[in-house]
């Protein structure tokens, strides 16, 4: 190991010829942050990784597609409304969320394995766990990272629509007065959907080191589970069959959207579950989050 940089470099930097640079080891005397800093660092690192930043171009395809599919329709509608006038009146928050739900599913299916599977497959976990963090901190960072990603899809496009609607209204202030809780509804729906999709995506990803397998299981699980529950609900006539809708995971986002924004789903009235109160689905989301969190924690507690 040379301790003297090249002479050419010295000449370029204007240093005296032959000057010796001391690049001896220096002990670190600077500030040291705590666990919260490490969690933040891991969160940002995981977000960057899932977006494919500083990775090869193939890693960027799905994120670019998802973001384009989320924002472009909203931007186009606002643009047309701005230049042409009121069009696509039926394009409201509820229908936007119904369109965003499959995108959230795809993003969670792609990003959750990206965040957890690589660390296990490449055996990076021992390095993380040898740092001054707990396993809970590690999971918290991963949950936060996926939450940020999903939240950016579940909250920002509807917010963009809200801003567009406000600016295009004849009286923006009047629009804001008439829609006092619209932002709250957007934040609530976006947060609940993000938690729901993130929890299931991460818990499945925590059981395998293979990203493709995790993504396939995630989409397959939600699709098949929903189909089975719906078939079961349609096959029985008992009065409690409506409650089966609570465990029909594929329908939960739709029910949440209906509950928060009112009205029936843009994809049609639910065959079962319609009589159930919307707040019950809040408990479903909370239950899913808690169960997935506990399972994941136990999974990583056993990890050496």
């Amino acid at each position, binding site marked *: 190991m040379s301790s003297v940089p090249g002479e050419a470099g010295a000449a370029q930097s204007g240093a005296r010829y032959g000057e010796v640079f001391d690049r001896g080891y220096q002990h670190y005397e600077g500030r*040291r942050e705590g*666990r919260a800093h*490490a969690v933040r660092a891991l969160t940002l690192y995981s977000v960057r990784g899932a977006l494919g930043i500083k990775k090869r171009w193939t890693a960027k395809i799905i994120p670019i597609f998802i973001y384009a599919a989320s924002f472009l329709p909203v931007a186009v509608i606002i643009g047309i409304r701005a230049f042409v006038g009121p069009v696509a009146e039926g394009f409201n928050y509820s229908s936007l969320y119904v369109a965003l739900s499959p995108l959230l599913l795809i993003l969670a299916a792609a990003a959750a394995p990206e965040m957890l599977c690589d660390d296990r497959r490449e055996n990076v976990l021992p*390095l993380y*766990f040898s740092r001054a963090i707990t396993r809970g901190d590690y999971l918290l960072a991963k949950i936060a990272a996926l939450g940020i990603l999903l939240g950016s899809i579940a909250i920002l496009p509807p917010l963009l629509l809200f801003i567009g609607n406000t600016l295009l209204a004849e009286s923006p202030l009047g629009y804001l007065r008439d829609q006092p809780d619209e932002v709250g509804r957007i934040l609530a729906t976006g947060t609940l959907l993000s938690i729901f999709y993130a929890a299931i995506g991460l818990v499945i990803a925590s059981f395998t080191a293979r990203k493709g397998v995790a993504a396939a299981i995630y989409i397959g699980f939600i699709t098949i589970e929903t189909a089975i529950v719906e078939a079961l609900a349609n096959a029985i006539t008992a009065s409690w069959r409506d409650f089966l809708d609570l465990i029909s995971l594929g329908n939960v986002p739709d029910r949440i959207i209906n509950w928060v924004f009112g009205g029936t789903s843009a994809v049609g009235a639910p065959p079962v579950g319609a009589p159930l109160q919307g707040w019950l689905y809040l408990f479903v989301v909370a239950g899913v989050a808690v169960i997935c969190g506990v399972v994941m924690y136990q999974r990583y507690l056993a990890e050496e």
Partner: protein
Amino acid sequence: MEPHRDEPVIICRGLRKAYGSVVALDHLDLEVPPGAIGLLGPNGAGKSTLIKLLLGLIRPTEGEASVLGFDTARDGIQVRQRTGYMPESDCLPGDVTAADFVGHMAQMSGLPARAARLRAAEVLYHCGVDEERYRLIREFSTGMKQRVKLAQAIVHDPDLVFLDEPTNGMDPQGREEMLELINRIHREIGITVLLSSHLLDDVERVCDYVLLVAQGRLVQHGPVRELIAGAGDILVEVDGDAARFREALVARGATVTASDGMLAVKHTDDLVFDVIRDTAADLDVALRGLRIQSRSLEDVYVQQVLAVNGGSDGVERAG
């Protein structure tokens, strides 16, 4: 917190770790001083388990351990703030550059983002990864990956670093450079190094204190110099009837074997020297040479581990 030079950096009291019926570590009692410490033992001896226990990554079944004054089971976070760890296995993500990854690991150890980037560049340079640090890790050779692993272990300037088989899979030249690097970390930079290896030569060249473990038990520990010096046989060269001299020594209770034309008398205690002197005087035999046979670490290792393993030393000789 810089440990005092005389204070033990690692203390274990009755440390035991069992996985069901399999005992990985069995009642370890030891105090390890600062310096370069070799953790030597065959594969499966319990070395990696001991490191994980010391890092607070797993809990002991019984007993307790402290590292740099912190209880490993209770204060794992504080232990890990002040220690670094280089695992034996491949543990680097392939899709990021060395600079990014080591910088990220510095941040994970609490360094602010800018300081982490600077520190990563500096430590990678000292580990022999300079311009290459902007290349993806998956393009690196095994030797370069080992250097990156070492860099991430010391990027936060720890007081103690655990190196688990750091020369694993390296070619002879890479191994030389890695051992030189580890030497520098200890002697120039002043970081206490615990080097776990099944390669005797690595430990002998780098370490000044050795822990020998076999089948989960600590079979020998102490400064290398003492281990290889003290208990070798006494080599005696006589001018005269060596056979008669040998018989006389045996008759006086000494254990004697022939060794390269000399007699090797077992060094049970220092009274043996008196027996040799008196026997030579009584038989009128001139003593031409008398010295303690020096032992290599390998001799100590083989002797101790064979006793535990019942014949197999499980060790690899380098080179």
